[in-house]
């Protein structure tokens, strides 16, 4: 059986199954049926050489009917393989297809049958989803005797701490320290969602709340959001009951409680800090700010809320730069006194998140003494295997579809393609190279995302080439456009700049370069004569826009634009390379002229 007739996708399906060894799907290498003429193997990833002959129109129509593809339908490729074309010519009524031309050696159809294209789309979505929410991996296997990895450890510590606050009503504080992108924020969120009861969560960020005033406002707002309308009355009741048990802050607390109650109906006005007239249309009382002196009192009543509270401070080190570290002091003080108290009231946990390792040292002494000193460290994955296992899991994410047969067929193909890709030594090598440079988990995710997006109907399987392209795109995207693509006058300016640098002037003005350029035009007669001031001036501005020329002094109104000092951000070798790539003799001569 060296050629099979195809009329409909149904036929194609059976054909594929048969040749894939369908009854025993584990078969790792594909043994072509006896007598199959083999075409010279082509590297995976050279997709268009042998394409699927145009399926009969009926098949096309059917496919469209069955699964509307979300992408614009590409016209099927028409470059028929040699044999197929011959066969087609021989019997136009019976289109014949050569089986072997459709597959790589490993048994993957080189060109995806049309009806599987929607499934590729679904697969891509499944992979993207898996990358967003990484699947559980078997860490014990990956880490061996190094188990548990830092993050698992950290997660347990953090969970314990939160449990203490939420379940047992303790006051806790801790600091989560780890490099950027090591999963700190994500870990906190995970730990909070895993808690048995839902606490009040206040999320602050040093990037958004630049000072304590903003932070307090935000705390007040988030508290009001989560405790709802009944918050204020309930609040004051509780306070009465717990008067005796409360730490000395009570007097202030009561005052603040009352202030809050009185002003409870007020709206916030950006121009007046407190107590504006409330618009009567407001139904829902919004918590408003007590006068600044009482702002911090808001914090001390947190333990009296009906539910335990978790306060997450992202960018913890930034809060330490606020005036007198007042907010930190109050938060930590409240948390501590909550712990030393008798356990009445709800628990409270303050979780600081930071990437700065010396954060504890920048705390003032009185603040530090109120901090529990618990520091939990996170880290990026410490084994390459972690990445590889995750990559496998993500790529192999199961995808679903309406048509069970298609799904099965697709899964079979895909489950071959993934190991084939991941077990390639060069793929692992490429990943290792990246891993050696940065263990950042996010770069891995970006690379995999880029790789996934590159999969198309024409080249549906991940290849080494795609991976490399994805890595170079995501790891170190080029800072400047290739210099040889710059307009001609811009290159001239770059050459003039190189000469200025050679003569000892790292800093230059536009006039200097323009003068050199004019001299060159005059002496060599080589540059195109039609350039006048305009083109060169625009080229200079373009280079400034692209940040290839950087201002070397802060701009002053008294300095005309053409005399503003600049320096160049690319070195002479880059210029030299660009000039060589452009291949213009006169430019090269000018550059090498001394």
């Amino acid at each position: 059986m060296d050629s099979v007739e195809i009329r409909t996708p149904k036929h194609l399906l059976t054909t594929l199954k048969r040749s894939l060894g369908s009854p025993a799907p584990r078969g790792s290498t594909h043994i072509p049926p006896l007598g199959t003429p083999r075409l010279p193997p082509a590297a995976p990833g050279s997709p268009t050489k042998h394409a699927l002959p145009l399926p009969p129109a009926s098949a096309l129509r059917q496919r469209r009917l069955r699964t509307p593809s979300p992408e614009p339908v590409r016209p099927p490729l028409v470059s028929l393989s040699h044999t197929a074309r011959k066969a087609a010519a021989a019997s136009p009524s019976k289109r014949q297809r050569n089986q072997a031309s459709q597959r790589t050696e490993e048994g993957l159809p080189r060109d995806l049958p049309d009806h599987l294209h929607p499934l590729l789309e679904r697969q891509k979505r499944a992979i993207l989803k898996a990358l967003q929410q990484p699947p559980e991996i078997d860490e014990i296997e990956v880490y061996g005797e190094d188990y548990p990895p830092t993050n698992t450890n950290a997660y347990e510590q953090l969970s314990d701490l939160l449990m203490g606050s939420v379940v047992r009503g303790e006051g806790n504080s801790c600091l989560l320290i780890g490099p950027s992108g090591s999963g700190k924020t994500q870990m906190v969120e995970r730990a909070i969602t895993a808690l048995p009861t839902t606490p009040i969560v206040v999320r602050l960020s040093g990037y958004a709340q630049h000072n304590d005033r903003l932070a307090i406002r935000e705390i007040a707002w988030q508290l009001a959001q989560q405790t709802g309308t009944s918050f204020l009355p309930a609040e004051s009741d509780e306070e009465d009951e717990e008067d005796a048990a409360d730490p000395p802050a009570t007097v202030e607390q009561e005052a603040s409680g009352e202030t809050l109650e009185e002003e409870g109906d007020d709206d916030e006005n950006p121009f007046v800090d407190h107590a504006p007239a409330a618009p009567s249309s407001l139904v829902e009382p919004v918590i408003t700010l007590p006068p600044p002196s009482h702002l911090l009192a808001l914090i001390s009543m947190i333990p009296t809320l009906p539910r335990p509270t978790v306060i997450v401070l992202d960018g913890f080190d930034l809060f330490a730069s606020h005036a007198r570290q007042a907010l930190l002091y109050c938060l930590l003080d409240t948390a501590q006194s909550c712990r030393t108290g008798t356990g009445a009231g709800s628990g409270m946990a303050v979780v600081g998140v930071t990437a700065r390792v010396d954060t504890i040292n920048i705390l003032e002494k009185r603040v530090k003494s109120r901090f529990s000193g618990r520091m939990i460290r996170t880290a990026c994955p410490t084994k390459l295997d972690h990445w590889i296992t995750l990559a496998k899991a993500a790529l192999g994410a199961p995808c679903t579809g309406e048509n069970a047969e298609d799904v099965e067929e697709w899964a079979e193909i895909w489950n071959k393609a993934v190991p084939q890709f991941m077990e390639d030594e060069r793929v692992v090598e490429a990943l290792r190279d990246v891993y050696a440079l940065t263990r950042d988990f996010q770069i891995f995710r970006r690379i995999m995302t880029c790789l996934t997006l590159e999969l198309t109907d024409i080249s549906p399987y991940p290849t080494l080439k795609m991976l490399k392209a994805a890595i170079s795109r995501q790891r170190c995207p080029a800072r400047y456009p290739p210099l040889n693509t710059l307009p001609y006058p811009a290159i001239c300016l770059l050459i003039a700049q190189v000469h200025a640098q050679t003569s000892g002037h790292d800093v230059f003005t536009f006039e200097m370069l323009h003068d050199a350029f004019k001299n060159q035009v005059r002496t060599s007669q080589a540059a195109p004569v039609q350039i006048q001031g305009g083109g060169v001036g625009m080229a200079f501005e373009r280079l400034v826009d692209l940040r290839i020329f950087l201002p070397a002094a802060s701009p002053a109104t008294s300095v005309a634009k053409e005399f503003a000092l600049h320096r160049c951000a690319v070195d002479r070798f880059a210029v030299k390379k660009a000039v060589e790539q452009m291949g213009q003799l006169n430019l090269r001569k000018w550059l090498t002229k001394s």
Partner: protein
Amino acid sequence: MSDIAPGLQTALADSPHYEFVSNHLSLLLSSYPPPFIFIHDPETVRLTASLVQSTLHGLASKSPTSGESQIKYACVNAVACFSPRILYDTALNALAGWTPDWRDGATNWHGSGAEARRYNENFDAFVHGIQTIAAGADNAGENAQTNGAGKGKGKAKEQGAPPNRRLVLVVERAERLKDNLPELVVPLTRLGELSQVDITTLFLSEVQWQDIRLPLRASPEPYYIDVPFLIKQDTQELLASAYPSPPAESSTSAVDVDAYHPALKPLYTHFIATLCSTCSPFTHDPIELAYIAAARWPGFIQPVLDAHRGLLKEEEIASSAEDGDADGKHEPHELQPPTEDTRLRLIRLFTPSFTAALESLYPRLSNAMDWARVHAPPVDLLLMPPGHAPEALAAQVVTNAASLNTQHGPTEAGIEALPRMAKFVLVAAFLASTNPARSDLRMFGRGLDERSKRRKRKVGTPRKPKPGTTGTAVKIPQRLLGPTTFPLDRLIAILGVLLEENDADTRPAAPQYTVSGEYTEMEIARVALHANIVELASMRLLVRTSPPDSLDRVPMFKCGIGYELAIKLAKSLGIILNDLVYEVV
């Protein structure tokens, strides 16, 4: 929404070159987008911006199927949004689908009903606004949109459970954020994390992210999308396929109605090819090239249209001469694409003007409309003998320019009209700004006996070392480094020398001055001179660098004119400037 011609926009949407970007983007945004995406396009960022917008528009107008989210997006331009409040309001208005209405006091979106409040107060308020929109509580905005009244106060009716919302915030020209709103860079890139809603921030810039982000890596790394470089071939195809549709009958545009006749499209393709090959060494930007094309094409095609009209007229005359059965049997002659010969002739005739167009239009020394008017060809260019056509074309440009009176730039004319003393002041200021102060004695010092004689200076300073022979850097002439500041006294002193040497003979006789130089002394002490200087400073031909309100200090100035202008002024006063400049040009 964008400043790009509709023709170019549709051409862009079909361009295979950009398919990659729009495919990636739409797949990402409709599935599981990373919280922060960065699109880098050094060459054609405006085209990409419009492409991103149309992609998003397509995604947003799709009604979501189950499991998908409804996309809402906002495009803000970091150039236009130069303050945080403007940025917040622009973004929220767009996300909520709210259009400020004039009759309503042009209020910004402020939520609906009970939730109504200001959302532009600070970043937290902005985040609250985003949360409100994401939760679907912004129906007021939608209502206002649908009933067109823009009232937005009405109670919104819930329309069942709305689908999930995914918000996308696009920031164009993101590099400006770093200069204008550096405190917003980090929060915007962490918007998803801060607001806890499904929102993706998309930065679009011609500068790479490394040059925008703040130090210490406070922002997460973005997902990078690099727009591929547009090669010349692609640019050409893009521009050619952006052939505009003929203007509507009623349009008031200055362009001939037939200029964009469909029959002329093949010629347009050739025109674009020639234009691209002449101009693309200087700029690759398709928008600039399209601008130049728009300025040149009406003139370029005018001869063809003239010829066609001539033909029509002839036919008319012929048919009226035939008379008899002139009952409208004659179909009006359709516009035919010009012959190969005509095409070559046109291209040869007009190619020189392409560079001229580039030179004045690319730096916007002129605008397309004026330029087209000045460079309109003479009538019936094609009927002229081929040898004369280029001259006729050039002559026509001169006449056009004269009739439109755009020959002289305003500065030039203004300088011509300056009083004679002011010209002396400017030349003196140029010298004071260009020569080092220590050279003044050498340049201007005159012995008693040679008061009225000019001392010739040896050309080239003897002390100047040969370039590169010493370890120090080659000296750069001051004229290239920009003017230096000088005190008023020095200006007056130099002015005195100039006046004594070049002006003394032209003055009316004044027998009361006996000592040589006394007359000049008198001249430079006049109040009128000081008034002149102040006026020049207000024109910025002199730049005052010391604060204007200090009485006790000598005022400092800087020259505001360049070398070329100084030479011209000096010549008109009979001064040989190069003899007085310390470093000879």
